[in-house]
């Protein structure tokens, strides 16, 4: 699936998520499914929660006990392959990287897409942090909890 179409299978995605209990607090979801030579997630993490090991071609592993959900890795990952997920009551909250202009603005509603690009619903923009240094905006969005494992990104402002 990933090799042929460019998006991960639901099983692959589920393997990178944590239980609802753990996700009461924000945790990084590392969607790096391929051995490529890369390690900025490890070197950027302020709490040492991400490990790759001596061979930087290996995939990163997150220690959810150490991860604070700060999202520094979201802006550091060159593959834009990290999001932070959290469950707050009946909503799933995410911090995602965004590199298109115009960036969303707080309180706007945006159409949300799954990993295959299909629209899955409407997400609310809860906050936007622009980083002049990385030039990748970190957008906080919420969507109904049922979309926890499907949500990938926001694509256009909801008409």
């Amino acid at each position: 699936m990933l090799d042929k179409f460019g998006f991960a299978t639901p099983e692959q995605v589920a393997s990178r998520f944590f239980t609802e209990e753990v996700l009461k607090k924000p945790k990084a979801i590392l969607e790096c499914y391929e051995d490529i030579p890369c390690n900025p997630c490890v070197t950027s993490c302020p709490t040492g929660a991400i490990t790759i090991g001596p061979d930087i071609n290996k995939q990163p592993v997150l220690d959810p006990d150490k991860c604070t959900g700060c999202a520094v890795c979201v802006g550091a990952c060159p593959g834009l392959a990290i999001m932070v997920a959290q469950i707050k009551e009946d909503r799933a909250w995410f911090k995602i990287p965004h590199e298109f202009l115009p960036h969303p603005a707080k309180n706007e509603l945006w159409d949300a897409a799954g990993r295959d690009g299909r629209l899955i619903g409407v997400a609310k923009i809860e906050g936007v942090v622009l980083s002049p240094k990385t030039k990748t905006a970190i957008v906080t969005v919420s969507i109904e909890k049922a979309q926890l494992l499907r949500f990938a990104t926001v694509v256009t402002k909801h008409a």
Partner: protein
Amino acid sequence: MIAKELVVIGGGPAGLCAAIAAAESGSRVLILDRSARLGGQLIKQTHKFFGSENQYAKTRGFDIAKILLSRVDTFADLIEIWVEATVVALYPDKVLTVVQDGKYIKIQAKAIVVAAGASEKFLAFENNDLPGVYGAGAVQTLMNVYGVRPADRVLMVGSGNIGLIVSYQLMQAGVKVAAIVEAAPRIGGYKVHASKIARLGVPILTSTTVLRAVGETCVKQAVTVKLDPAWKPIPGTESVHDVDAICVAVGLTPLTSLLAMAGAMTSYIPELGGYAPILTDEHESTLADVFVAGDAAGVEEASSAMVEGRLAGLCAAKRLGYPHADFDDIVSECHAQLAGLRNGPFGCKTCAGIAKMREVRDHAR
């Protein structure tokens, strides 16, 4: 004839790192580049780099160019730069012919680092000479160097990292990417790059290629076709895409023409992108004192080009009598970094290519 110590051909990631390493060692360096601006392909790369901090990971390509150029500036007394200076000939006695400002200039070098990069491969299909059929490098140059939007709707041919990255950049520039077609049954580039595009709704069509461009004076449509496991078009599977550009990103081949002209040994090694020079572990060609680094030595990522450049610059400077104070340590660090970058499934291909190159080299001895 102008006499120079070390001449570096090409001011991209490999050439700049070679010049910096040689100047750190104490050598005088002349960088020759055919462009108006140094940085090579780095200045067109808007994505963050992979690799480790040693290769400026998570920094965007054009920012890496700025870092390297400011490092070059600190050696203003040692590094001389000629831009819009195209090397058109290289002779076995290390004489170069450079064209600059409409004049032919001859340079006698004591040592040379060839960091000329690579050229794009192209694809034969009907009407591929229509305006609107671009190489990916041209699209990047228009968008990211000159700020010109190359088209409104593009069909991307090739799903290697360049095809994927340029598709993403086109979308950032407001251009619609109709689809990415890939003749192989699998996506060629990093899946994280593919996923960035897939989640934005762009279909990646594997086992599919472009059959022809349609249009009288410019591209109006592209016809694609599915391929069977033997890569033969399957009749009846054609589909038509309304696009005003077709971007061809089907790989690169090392620019070895200068080396071949001077008589350096090259060999056809598909894993390295085509004809590649036969090199020692110090990146010296079969011509004494002529070193090669970056894509000219075998097509790979810019991360490894920078490390190879550093290695070649250090070794060339040592040959000229300027051994770096920490020569042995830095050289083994460079080899360790290259081994690290090439340790994964993508690096395997490069390692296989290098193994073939060494076989040719050892056989020739």
